[in-house]
């Protein structure tokens, strides 16, 4: 690698949590590894030295083409309000709306990467009546479009790469950036919402440590219960695309391991599920949203069957906050 790829990172209508999450990377040398992989962080609002005029000079050089912009990372949703003016976020020191800066820089970028669900789809900032008129780079919720329009392509020919998640996982970001730096990252590496398949080819359900409870439909009924969170507690892990329970968070964690529902935070419009987040909507006692690729009748039949076969240990532990019955040791020679 003879030249490093210039990376510029912008933050707008989000919480900054995707950057903070990136810093949780389990790399022993995060920035050293990124640079060794060929990525130079030209400017990042939370991490670089440059402030004020020095920082604006970097952005101006990239926007004018004087400096090569290889990867533009945008974190946070695009705030178009009020009434399309973009004044809900004027980039400090510039008198210009941030959405204007994003348009200018995206027009120059070799690759454009949306960091997190806000930049991808609008995310949490687009919830409710969406007072800030928030949207993503190329999506407004599930609808293609967004700030840059559905037909936007960066210089590489790719649309914006949506590293969705709320926050996004540090590994999803570093893997995506490294895949781009290694070359050959193409359309086939993106799923139907332009997310990198490297983490959306799995469901949150894969690797769930509550799987035994799921198998037997032994369900949690209240926070801190050990049982499956799907039937009552709002968990949508069987429909959410992400490898959270394979890759894990902060060493050994994930939402379901933390005792709370997967809210599908990698999916468009997760912020408006149409029901309270931690309560599963049901009709006649049956959860409305079942695994997407399984016939409903079969699911219900299997559930009824497995519920009747549930061992007492699993049934009792499901509604307790610790194992009240532990697995019995099997004596050698018995079957």
């Amino acid at each position, binding site marked *: 690698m003879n030249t490093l790829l210039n990376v510029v990172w912008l*933050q707008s*209508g989000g*919480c*900054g*949590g995707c*950057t*903070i*999450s990136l*810093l949780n990377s389990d790399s022993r040398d*995060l*920035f050293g590894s990124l640079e060794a992989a060929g990525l130079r*962080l030209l400017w990042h*609002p*939370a*991490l*670089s*030295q440059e*402030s*004020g*005029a*020095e*920082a604006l000079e970097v952005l101006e050089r990239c926007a004018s083409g004087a400096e090569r912009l290889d990867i533009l990372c945008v974190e946070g949703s695009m*705030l178009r309000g*009020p009434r399309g003016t973009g004044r809900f*976020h*004027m*980039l*400090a*020191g510039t008198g210009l709306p*941030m959405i204007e800066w994003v348009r200018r820089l995206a027009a120059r970028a070799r690759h454009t990467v949306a960091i997190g669900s806000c930049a991808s789809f609008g995310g*949490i*900032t687009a*919830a*409710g*009546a969406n*007072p*800030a008129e*928030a949207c993503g780079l190329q999506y407004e919720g599930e609808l293609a479009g967004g700030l840059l329009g559905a037909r936007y392509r960066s210089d590489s020919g790719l649309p914006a790469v949506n590293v969705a998640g709320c*926050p996004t996982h540090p590994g999803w970001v570093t893997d995506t950036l490294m895949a781009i730096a290694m070359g050959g990252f193409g359309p086939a590496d993106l799923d139907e919402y332009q997310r990198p398949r490297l983490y959306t080819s799995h469901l949150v359900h894969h690797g769930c440590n509550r799987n035994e409870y799921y198998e037997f439909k032994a369900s949690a009924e209240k*926070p*801190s219960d*050990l049982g499956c969170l799907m039937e009552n507690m709002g968990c949508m892990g069987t429909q959410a695309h992400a490898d959270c329970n394979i890759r894990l*968070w*902060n060493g*050994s*964690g994930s*939402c*379901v*391991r*933390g*005792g*709370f529902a997967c*809210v599908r*935070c990698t999916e468009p419009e997760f912020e408006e599920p149409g029901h*309270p*987040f*931690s*309560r599963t909507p049901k009709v006649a006692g049956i959860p409305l949203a079942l695994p997407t690729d399984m016939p409903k009748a079969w699911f219900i039949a299997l559930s009824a069957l497995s519920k009747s076969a549930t061992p007492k240990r699993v049934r009792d532990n499901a509604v307790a*906050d*610790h194992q009240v019955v532990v697995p019995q040791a099997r004596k050698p020679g018995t079957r």
Partner: protein
Amino acid sequence: MTRLVVGPFNRVEGDLEVTLDIAGGVVKAAYVNSPMYRGFEQILVGKDPLDALVFAPRICGICSVSQSTAAARALAQAMNIEMPENGELAANLVLATENLADHLSHFYLFFMPDFARDAYAGRDWHAAARTRFAALKGSATGDALPARAGFLNIMGYLAGKWPHTLAIQPGGSSRSVEEAERIRIFAMLIEFRGFLERRLFGDRLEAIAALDSEAALRAWMDGHAPDASDFRRFLAIADDLQLERLGRAADRFLSFGAYPLAGKPLFQRGVWDGRLSPLDPAQITEDETFAWMGGTGKPLHPSEGITQPNADKAAAYTWCKAPRLGGKTMETGALARQAVDGHPLIRDLVATSGGNVRNRVIARLLEIARVVPAMEQWCRDLKPGQPFCRQGAVPEEGAGMGLAESARGSLGHWLTVSRGRIANYQIVSPTTWNFSPRDAAGTEGPLEQALAGTPVGEGEQVPLAVQHVVRSFDPCMVCTVH
């Protein structure tokens, strides 16, 4: 008089613009603009009350658990439930993990890199500061980031993930802890202690926490060379640059009290302005005279606060409202927390030189030294097998106030529930206090006060002293306006 508009400010959380009126080489007046509005208080209206636990942490990615904590406490008050002992211990551990990780990020990633700048090339400590603290490249980044990430692995056990957990519930924690996990959490705490004692302090945490006066601090500092630890290096730089003379506001300090256990907080609640007085939350109001907000025009208590953005308001210069306690500005943060709690070193420093750039940084590091041993004790006190969460129901009609201390200071949520839905939700964050604009009386916010008199060098476009003052508050701009 010349006018300088400074922004974007790097190494603060979120976007910030400061307008400076400069004459005779010093700042005469400052106007602080929080330039981004998202509208959480509007988004939350009409939601199921428990959904606040999903939305509130997403106000901020760096104070995420603090926002969860305030929301859970507001809900708990409305639901009239209290956490069991394990719930309080787990919630304290989660909040303390976030707060200390934030203190560490502030020191190593946000604040110290400024001393690596070329502008300080003539100082005898500059080469060492550059090697150690240069943004992204300094050796400290390589030390502190893995130490921080390792420490935050506590979140993997207790919160599922960080930021944005749903583990903090009104009745406790959704995550119970097994005995093996309790031991692993303890192992992470002592590993973090090791990093702090080797690199940050060069001494036992207990020795730092026991420093009880400026004289004691000075004697400790003189005990070894500045390169013995990062804290000593900072103190030497602070001496050379006289950082204790920079960034003084009004020396009125607010703390909501932190880390409760069985009704008693580890750090007490109150107001310190040379003497201690109790906090009366009923005295809190928000003024919006200079905010792009179009409400009633008069200051309101947050329980009846209104958030109605108006980008065309002529006199306004920020999206941030101006919180006041009994009509007065308040500084909040680690310095305030430790002054209110009565730590003798901080009380002595504040009595001598007030709230300033140096003292704010010292208070943050002192707090790390005080809280890690408390965390070790909380971890010892966890009782696997005992309850972690009590259950309750949100009433159809009700209200609640949730007060918490984040790394950056006092955070309050005010919730009103009507017909089973959120009817009003108001948030007053630490940086809303610290970076507030002027109020109707024309009184400047704490940062605006602190910047007045700050020196500006000839031709400085981004005055360094101004940057030190701004960053000394560890601002979180995404919380400020929310």
